[in-house]
C-alpha cells in the first residue's frame, strides 16, 4: 500500500477558547516511522486523542486511509486499523497477560461473536507467539497487576500488535523503564515499523536517537514547528529556543549549556 496513510489538514482543537492544536498540518506515509517531540503542553496527547476519536476537531480534518474520521467513534476507528498505546500502561489488571492479548486479538468484536464463539486456533497461536515476543510466556497466566512496570508496558505494546492495526500510535513507551528495557523497547518498535506505520511520541532524547531513522516532527503550541532528520532538528535554533523558553538569551549560561547538552546527547 503506497501513499499517505494519515493526512491532517488545518486541524484546530480548542477547549473553551484555549487552542490545544492550532492549524496543524501533518501527513504520514504508509510504512513510515515518525517520532514526534515537543515540550510539555505542545499538544502531543491531544494530537493522539484526535486521531483515535476521543476528541473531535473544532476545525479542519483528519483522514485515515483517505476517510475523514470525524463521523466515527473510538471503537470504529480502532476497527479501521488505528491502535493506541497510552502513556501509563493501561492493561486490564485483573486479567492475565494471555487474556489481555486474547481480548485484543479477537477479530470480530461484536457482542454475539464474543459471547458465542470460542477464539479460533489461529488467534490462540498468535497470542502464544506474541507472549514469547514480549517475553511474558512464562508469566502468561498470572494476573497482570503482579507484573512489573516494564512488563506492563510490553504487554500493552503486545496488545497493540494483537489488534494488528495498520497505524500504531505509541505515547511515551519508555517512561519509567531502565536503560536496558528502553533499548529492547526501541528494537521492538523498529521491528514493528517494518510492517506497520508508527507514530511515536517521546521525551527521552537518547531513545529518539535510537529509533528516529527518518523524519522527526517537533510540535510547539499546537502547531508543527519544524520537521526533518533528528540531527538537523536538534541543531535548529527554533527548536533549541522552544526547549529553553522564550528568554533564551537571558538564561544563565550553565542552564543553557545543560539543556543544549541534553538535546545533543
Amino acid at each position, binding site marked *: 500500500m503506497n501513499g499517505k496513510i494519515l493526512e491532517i489538514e488545518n486541524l484546530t482543537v480548542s477547549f473553551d477558547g484555549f487552542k490545544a492544536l492550532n492549524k496543524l498540518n501533518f501527513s504520514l506515509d504508509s510504512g513510515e516511522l515518525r517520532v514526534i517531540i515537543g515540550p510539555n503542553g505542545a499538544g502531543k496527547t491531544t494530537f493522539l486523542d484526535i486521531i483515535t476519536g476521543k476528541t473531535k476537531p473544532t476545525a479542519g480534518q483528519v483522514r485515515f486511509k483517505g476517510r475523514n474520521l470525524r463521523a466515527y*467513534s473510538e471503537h470504529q476507528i480502532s476497527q479501521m486499523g488505528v*491502535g493506541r498505546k497510552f502513556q501509563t500502561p493501561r492493561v486490564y489488571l485483573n486479567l492475565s497477560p494471555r487474556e489481555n492479548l486474547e*481480548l485484543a486479538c479477537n477479530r470480530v468484536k461484536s457482542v454475539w461473536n*464474543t459471547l458465542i464463539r470460542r477464539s479460533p486456533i489461529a488467534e490462540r497461536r498468535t497470542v502464544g507467539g506474541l507472549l514469547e515476543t514480549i517475553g511474558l510466556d512464562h*508469566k502468561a497466566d498470572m494476573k497482570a497487576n503482579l507484573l512489573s512496570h516494564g512488563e506492563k508496558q510490553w504487554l500493552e505494546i503486545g496488545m497493540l500488535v494483537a489488534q494488528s492495526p495498520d497505524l500504531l500510535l505509541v505515547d511515551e513507551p519508555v517512561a519509567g523503564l531502565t536503560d536496558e528495557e528502553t533499548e529492547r523497547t526501541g528494537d521492538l518498535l523498529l521491528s514493528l515499523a517494518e510492517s506497520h506505520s508508527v507514530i511515536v511520541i517521546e521525551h527521552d532524547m537518547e531513545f529518539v536517537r535510537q529509533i528516529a531513522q527518518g523524519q522527526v516532527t517537533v510540535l510547539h503550541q499546537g502547531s508543527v514547528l519544524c520537521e526533518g532528520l533528528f540531527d538537523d532538528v536538534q541543531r535548529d535554533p527554533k527548536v533549541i529556543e522552544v526547549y529553553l523558553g522564550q528568554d533564551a538569551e537571558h538564561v544563565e549560561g550553565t542552564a543553557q549549556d545543560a539543556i543544549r547538552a541534553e538535546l545533543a546527547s
Partner: protein
Amino acid sequence: MTVQASSERGGIDWVKYRPLLIEAAIVGAIALFLILVLPALLSGFRLTLMGRFLALAIVALGIDLIWGFTGLLSLGHGIFFTLGGYALAMHLKLPQPPGSGLPDFMSLYGVTELPWFWTPFYSFSFTAVAVVVLPALMAGLLGYVIFRNRIRGVYFSILTQAATIIFFNFFNGQQQLFNGTNGLTDFRTVLGQPIQNPGIQTSLYVLTIVFLIVAYALCRWLTSGRFGRLLVAIRDDESRTRFTGYNPTGFKVLVFAISGALAGVAGAMFTLQSGIVSPNTMNIAFSIEMVIWVAVGGRATLVGAILGALIVNFAKSLLSERFPDIWLFFQGGLFLGVVLLLPAGLLGWGRTQGVELYKQLMGQRRVATYPSLEEDPEVEHERKNLGD
C-alpha cells in the same frame, strides 16, 4: 503442549472438562441436599423462608453479574423483581376460564371492564414468557438510554434509583389497575391447583432450586469465557476497551437485560411463595438490600452472591424474631463490618486471608514476601532448584 495438541485434534478432552464436571457434581449434590434432606431438618415455617430466600438468591446473581463483574452499581433491581412478580400475580388474579369475571379488587373500585393489557395474562404461557421478557425489556431499554449516552458510575446508580421512585409511585397510585399500595394478593389457584396445597408448595420450592441452578449455570457461562473477561475489562477500564475496538454499550445493555430477567424470575418465584406482590418491593431500601447481600457474600463470586442472600436474609429473620426493635441496627452493622473489615466479602476473604489463616493454624509457615514474588514462576523455579 500435549493438552493443546489433543484439543486441536478435536474430540472430547476429559482432562480439560474435569473441573467443570466436579463443579456440576457439587451443585447437584447441594441441590439434592436442599430438596431431599433439608425438609426433614427444618420446620415448615423455616422451609418456606428457605424457599423465598433461594428466590432472592436468583436476583443476587443478577446483581453480581451487573455490579460484581461489569462494575455497574444498580440500585433499581427492585423494579425488575417487582415487574416479574406482578406479571405472574396478574395471571393468578384472573378468574379462569377467560371472561368469567374480573379480578376481585377491581369491583371495589367500580371497574366494569378488564383493562386491555390484563387480557393476555389469561394465558399461562404468555405469563411465563412475560415474567422473563418484561423485566429484561425494561432493563434493556433503560440501559440503552443510559449507556448510549456514556453515563457511568454514581450517575448510573442515581438514575436507577430515580427510576425506582417513578415505578413505585406509578404502581402505588394505580388502584384501579393494580390495587395500588395493597398490591395483588390472595391467590387461590395456580394451573388449576389450589396454591396452599402442601404438594404445590413443595413443587414451588423445588422449582425455585431448579431456577437457581439454571441462573447459576447461565452466569457461570457468561462470566467464564471471552465475554466474561470483557465484562471485567469494561469494569476495570471501559475507555480502554473502546480503543481496542469494542463498543461497550451493547455488552452492558445485554448484561443489564439478563440481570433484569433474573430479577424478574426471582420476583415471580418469591411472589408465588409469599403469596403477595406489592409496590413495597419497589422501595429503594429493598434494592439497596440486594446490593448488601452481594457485598456481604463477595462481589464477582457467584457462589458468594447466593451465600450472601441466604446468610443476610436468615440473619435478618432470626434477629427480627429475637430483637424486633433493634434488628435493623444489626443489618446496618453487618454491612459496615463487611465493608470495613472484609472488603472482598465473606467468600473473597475466605479465598485469600482465610486460606492463609487456615495454613497458619495448621502449623504451616506463613509467607512473608510480596504476593507477586509468590506467584512469579522464575522465583518458584529458583526456590525449587536452589533452595530458599
